[in-house]
């Protein structure tokens, strides 16, 4: 049976790869944001060497890792599952053999890995060459970074899946999504590095479920708190898996009852 999920993962990878460069505009948007934010940080660091433990190289690394990961954290297919729930198309998935959550997750992960490998990595590599980012160069460092990115993709799926399950309960799921999304992104270090947070907020951010989406992989790339970051990611991936299963089981029970 596990081979079936691997097949789904491969299918997701292939599907996304076919359209990897269809949406060049999205890539340009990523690069543009990277350029703007780099310019802002370069200006901020003009008279400073290190702030809150980050030097300018570390901050530029932060900028471009976040740009690379953002399309993974908020992929173009966000809300697809929720739409299937609302339209009733989910019934088709429910009558298929195998586990719905694993199947959805495998396909999603496949798409996201393709996104990472073929697309998001390009601006990051370009910036690494042009701006001398601080990315790991040793085999264990590279392995840790790849692992952190992979875990971010899994966590991203779980995070989105939980949000999209609100579609079982309300047609206004996107409103609730927006409510959650912005604070979550902020806490994950989307707007500024978590290292610039006040100490208390930083302590929360370092162990929060969304840490592994952006800030964790950033830290691994910068070579800071590597093992701690990976540990927090793994921990929340496991918790997220249990959470997703519980929520899905409850939601499906409601659907079955409601459907008579």
């Amino acid at each position, binding site marked *: 049976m596990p081979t079936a999920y691997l097949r789904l993962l491969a299918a997701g990878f292939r599907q996304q790869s076919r359209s990897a460069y269809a949406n060049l505009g999205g890539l340009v948007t990523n690069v543009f944001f990277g350029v*703007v934010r780099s*310019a802002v940080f370069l200006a901020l660091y003009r008279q*400073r060497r290190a702030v809150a433990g980050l030097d300018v190289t570390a901050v530029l690394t932060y900028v471009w890792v976040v740009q690379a990961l953002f399309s993974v954290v908020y992929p173009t297919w966000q809300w697809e599952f929720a739409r299937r729930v609302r339209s009733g198309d989910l019934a088709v998935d429910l009558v298929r053999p195998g586990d719905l959550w694993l199947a959805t997750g495998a396909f999603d992960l496949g798409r996201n890995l393709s996104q990472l490998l073929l697309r998001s990595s390009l601006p990051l590599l370009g910036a690494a060459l042009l701006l001398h980012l601080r990315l790991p160069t040793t085999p264990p460092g590279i392995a840790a970074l790849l692992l952190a990115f992979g875990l971010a993709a899994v966590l991203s799926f779980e995070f989105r899946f939980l949000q999209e399950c609100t579609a079982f309960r*309300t*047609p206004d799921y996107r*409103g609730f999504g927006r409510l959650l999304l*912005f604070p979550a992104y902020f806490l994950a270090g*989307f707007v500024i590095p978590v290292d610039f947070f006040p100490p208390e907020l930083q302590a929360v951010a370092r162990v929060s479920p969304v840490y592994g989406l952006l800030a964790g992989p950033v830290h691994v790339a910068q070579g800071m708190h590597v093992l701690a970051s990976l540990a927090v990611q793994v921990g929340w991936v496991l918790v997220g898996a249990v959470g997703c299963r519980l929520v899905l089981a409850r939601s499906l029970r409601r659907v079955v009852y409601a459907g008579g």
Partner: protein
Amino acid sequence: MDDLRLAVRLGRASAAAYTARPVLLLTGLVGAALAVGIEVLGVVLLLGQFGRLGGWDVHEVALLLGLVECGLSFAVAAGYSLETSTFAALVTGGEFDAVLTRPLSPLLWVLSRDVQPRELGRLAVGAATVVWGAHGAGVRWTPAHVGLAVLSVGCCATVLLAIHILGAAVTFRTGQGTEFVNAFIFGGATLASYPLQVFDLSLRVVFTYLVPVALTVYVPALVLLDRPGAPWAGRSLLPLVPVAAAGVLGAAVFAWRGGVNHYQRSGG
């Protein structure tokens, strides 16, 4: 003018329709407010660490950010139906046929079909940020200064909406939404919310003269803050602000008309 009045009325009605879904409206309002809130918080924390950005303190930068967010709120609220994938579906699905049978300019009809009231959340926090930033920076709210802020928001909204319209004009020809539009709208808005002097000359020139998002915010802010500004983007450009906004909108409407003609020639 008659058309415009009608479109405003239709737009108001479509926005008011969201009151029938109070949960969606409320979560949307708060969500939009939060979207600005995290940006403001980011600027506050960042400048808490660094003190100044390009010589500007936190209040001055916040004033810029607030003006941009106010402009963005109007542009997004009005341009919601032009959002890339929505509009591409309208064109390729043939729904635009029906638009052409209405006794109203097609552009105004499309814009008025879905006006997003949730952007009021963005506007509220944006305006509060302007007030807070201006207060901290010692701006005195003379009538002229208030007029300047309104002009800035109006022109910024106009430019951002014009980019939306240009994107839609391209969609008539390609049948696809183009994400490039977002690079200019949201990327441009992000760029304009920082003091322009921190950017390269090339970026400054593009976003002042070609896609004048930064011009419409930075230059009025210079006058409000009584600062000279960056080379090629000084406060002497103030008279250019409304001219540039009107020019970009005019170009966008011209391109849109070309797009509609193309649609009528090719059959969608």
